[in-house]
């Protein structure tokens, strides 16, 4: 491994340093091996590494063609996701980048199309088949592979004819294809960044363009994207002069995404005041940086509360102890230049308890705050082991459970088989391998994650604000494209793959 730092365990920081002077293929291989060996562990680290890698990949791509760029990213993403399928943050970032590329491409295809009425096919929205509300059509998240898979092949192939013929195709196919074509209003991922278009035109658009745009799907704070559906196939037409911009725009978008990753904790902490009052007793689990900064923010606003901190033995207890005693900074960012002060230094009482005491104390807890590893499309979580017990106990005692997670942790995957999503860790952490006979005859199991059902969660706080679990599918719709959920094969390939990418 061409790592220049001698004697240091490979990790996120060494990887980021090596990215600067390695070629692309090496970097990809390096990242894959880090993922496979679990030397790069939690969601945030993986996301940061992935985005840095993809930035380089995009930077090095020679083509101006958006479609080829997409293919390249998909290929890389496929390999990364295959290296460690349970690290969903990797796949999430890949899909976010793909979404950005598609959106940039679409925007460049129709630069003047902010209000132009488009050829669009049909017709006034057919109720029940309305193109404006794909998300409401099925019970599953519209991005469930079943739904997406069924339309996938038609999508890709139907797009060109549709645009060409100005879509006289039957509403059914058009409707379904529209689902894919219909770009979920370009939101959140870019809100904090360069606003994309006339912000105030959303309602106006109902009157002007019944098809294609879906004001109903506008998330609360939304600016509508100007560009539209029914586009000519990407990359086929369009002025060549626009292509120059694509790569640069994509790079800008990726850098915006990077910034989002860095700022996610701060943005989530902004909501701390709304949820924590004086004299509260809060329960938290593991050494999550996000939770610590959330609580620190509340503490800095002069709220005096108590925190019961479970230690998450055996996978996270050392980091938890470190976080409680020394403050954050030792977790995901090993070389973080800031070590935050611990909560206790802000005058907050922190009580360390073993995981087993959760039920005993739950009757006195006012609020539970958790940070997940991944959030799934239906609002359920994969979180550190022990979270399921905590959430169940909270439900029993009617204690609200608040989950803090950046949008990058939100995965379009629907949990069909929850067992597959759980990772099992090193049994040596439970029983040291020196105890040979014990290890030999007794089966030691150390699950690293727990699945927490959406019903047990009361509130999600993401960098976009607070949401009920039932709203998450909408955020998924805003940030990912249906065609990106399955990263396998190429376009047009039998997308019958039921497995989510």
């Amino acid at each position: 491994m061409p790592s220049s730092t001698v004697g240091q365990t490979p990790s996120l920081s060494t990887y980021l340093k090596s990215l600067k002077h390695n070629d692309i293929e090496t970097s990809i291989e390096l990242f894959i091996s880090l993922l496979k060996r679990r030397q790069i562990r939690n969601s945030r680290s993986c996301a940061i590494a992935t985005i840095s890698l993809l930035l380089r990949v995009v930077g090095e791509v020679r083509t101006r063609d958006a479609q080829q760029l997409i293919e390249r990213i998909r290929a890389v993403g496929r390999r990364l996701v295959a290296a460690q399928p349970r690290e969903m943050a990797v796949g999430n970032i890949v899909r976010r980048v793909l979404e950005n590329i598609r959106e940039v491409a679409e925007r460049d295809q129709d630069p003047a199309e902010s209000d132009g009425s488009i050829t669009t096919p049909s017709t006034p929205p057919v109720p029940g088949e309305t193109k404006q509300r794909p998300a409401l059509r099925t019970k599953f998240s519209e991005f469930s592979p079943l739904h997406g898979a069924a339309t996938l092949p038609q999508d890709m192939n139907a797009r060109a004819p549709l645009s060409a013929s100005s879509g006289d195709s039957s509403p059914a196919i058009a409707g379904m294809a529209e689902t894919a074509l219909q770009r979920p209003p370009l939101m959140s991922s870019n809100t904090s960044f360069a606003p994309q278009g006339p912000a105030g035109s959303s309602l106006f658009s109902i009157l002007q363009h019944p098809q294609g745009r879906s004001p109903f799907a506008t998330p609360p704070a939304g600016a509508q994207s100007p560009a539209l559906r029914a586009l000519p196939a990407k990359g086929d037409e369009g002025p060549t002069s626009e292509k120059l911009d694509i790569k640069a725009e994509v790079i800008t978008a990726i850098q915006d995404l990077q910034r989002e990753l860095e700022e996610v904790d701060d943005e989530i902490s902004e909501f701390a005041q709304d949820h924590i009052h004086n004299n509260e007793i809060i329960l938290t689990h593991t050494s999550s940086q996000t939770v610590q900064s959330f609580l620190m923010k509340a503490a800095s606003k002069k709220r005096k509360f108590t925190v019961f901190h479970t230690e998450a033995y055996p996978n996270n207890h050392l980091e938890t102890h470190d976080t409680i005693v020394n403050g954050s900074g030792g977790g995901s960012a090993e070389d973080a230049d800031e070590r935050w002060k611990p909560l206790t230094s802000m005058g907050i009482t922190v009580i360390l308890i073993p995981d087993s005491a959760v039920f005993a104390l739950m009757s006195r807890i006012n609020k539970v705050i958790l940070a997940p590893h991944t959030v799934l499309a239906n609002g359920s979580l994969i979180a550190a082991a022990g979270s399921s017990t905590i959430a169940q106990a909270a439900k029993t005692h009617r204690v609200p459970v608040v989950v803090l997670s950046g949008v990058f942790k939100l995965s379009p995957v629907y949990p069909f088989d929850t067992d597959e999503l759980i990772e099992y860790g090193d049994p040596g952490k439970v029983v040291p391998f020196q105890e040979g006979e014990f290890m030999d005859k007794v089966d030691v199991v150390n699950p690293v994650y727990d699945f927490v059902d959406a019903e047990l969660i009361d509130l999600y706080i993401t960098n976009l604000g607070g949401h009920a679990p039932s709203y998450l599918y909408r955020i998924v719709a805003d940030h990912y494209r249906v065609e990106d959920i399955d990263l396998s094969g190429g376009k047009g390939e039998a997308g019958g793959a039921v497995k989510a990418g």
Partner: protein
Amino acid sequence: MSEPTKAPEAAQLAEEAKLSPAELKKRAKAEKQARRAAQKGEPGATGVPVPATNGTHEAPKPPKQSGPQEQKAQGSQQKGPPQQKQKQGVQEGKHERTGSIQQPLPTRGMPALAGPVKEVQRKDKKQVELFSHLYTQSRRQDIAGASKNVHPSVVALGFQMSSYEICGSSARCVAMLVAFKEVVQTYVTPSEVSLARDLTSRHLSPQIDFLRSCRPISESMGNAIRWLKKTIVEIDPRTPEQEAKDYLCDEIDRFVRERITVTDQAIAASASALIKDGSVVLTYAKSSIVEKTILQAHANGTRFRVMAVDSRPLFEGKSLATSLMHAGLQVEYLPFSGIAYAVKEATLVLLGAHSMLSNGRLQSRVGTAALAMQAHKADIPVIVCCESVKFSGKVALDSIVLNEVAPSEELLLPKATVSHAPALDRKDDDDEDRQVRSLHDWRDIPGLQILNLMYDVTPAEYIRMVICEYGNVPPSSVPVVHRLANEGIM
């Protein structure tokens, strides 16, 4: 009594700013007299003249503060006038500080007070407030302060209990009774006193107190002690001493045999019938009765496997897993975080008890309630195996009122574990603000507490059945069995 004095005091308030020594002296004398009168009227009462002025100044402050101040004031008041003058001087200097400007004595007392108050606060902060009622007696670390009557075997037993060598309520009960046999044998009845009356109060009580100071006694021990005292009292005073002592020892043997040993066998036989071929038995920590049940089922030839869940800091589940492993069973061992995984596969949950409470709840090792809850949600039957000697007349609604708090140090990991790699990169180790501390420094960190609970209470609705020597009963029958077995009322 305080009201009439408030008015003149209020007037004095206005004059106070003048700071003439003569007036101060006069005021001090008046206050002193009033205080003396107050002392005679209500010793140790709050309010009253000088404290009343205290009150006017410190109305917003909690009355508690004036409490210790007055007591100090009343204490120092008796020292005499010369001190008062000094205090006045001090008082003038500390004019702004306390607000108790008109009261020289408390001001003088304040610095002395500041010490103990602060220390008490610092010490209190290491105790979790919710459980402050459980911190009353810290565990004994050595033999200092023990009564001279404590029998050596009881001393040994006490330390074995506090170091968890003997852990588990049945084991502790039996060990205690065995030690008491020796205690009884060494007892010598003094003249003019009968064994029946004297043994309990003079000889047995110090032993019990010593044991209690090592570790709070369990419910089974409590029931056994009550039974023993009853037996002693019922001894005919005319029996010769040795015969009485032998009788007591035999009775103790009988108690242990009937209520623990034979009972365990009966419960094991009954509960092992619940384990069928292909069962997956889930258990938590180490219960001797559950262990016997499992071994009995294994001896019966049933083919099943066991999942043992464990928790910090005692790791009792590991010793259970080890002993089952040696017996040839197929065992799976999980940390507490693996409960969600465990309930996916388990078909039966067997739990031991510290005690069964009269409202049907189970008091057992901390973590049992969480396991029972998960099992209940997964529709797995939860069976408790519990001898009647552990049944209790107490009731509890939560795990906070009846509990035991163990020393926090037990939760600390041994020091020589991980060396934080990041620490090597840090050049600011010298910087005291960013000193990397470990959990072992928890006492020095203000606001940090460590809570080490020993028990929790599992709601009755999670428990399907309780197996005791009287049969298989639902949790709601616990008070009836308790009456029958422990109080002897049919």
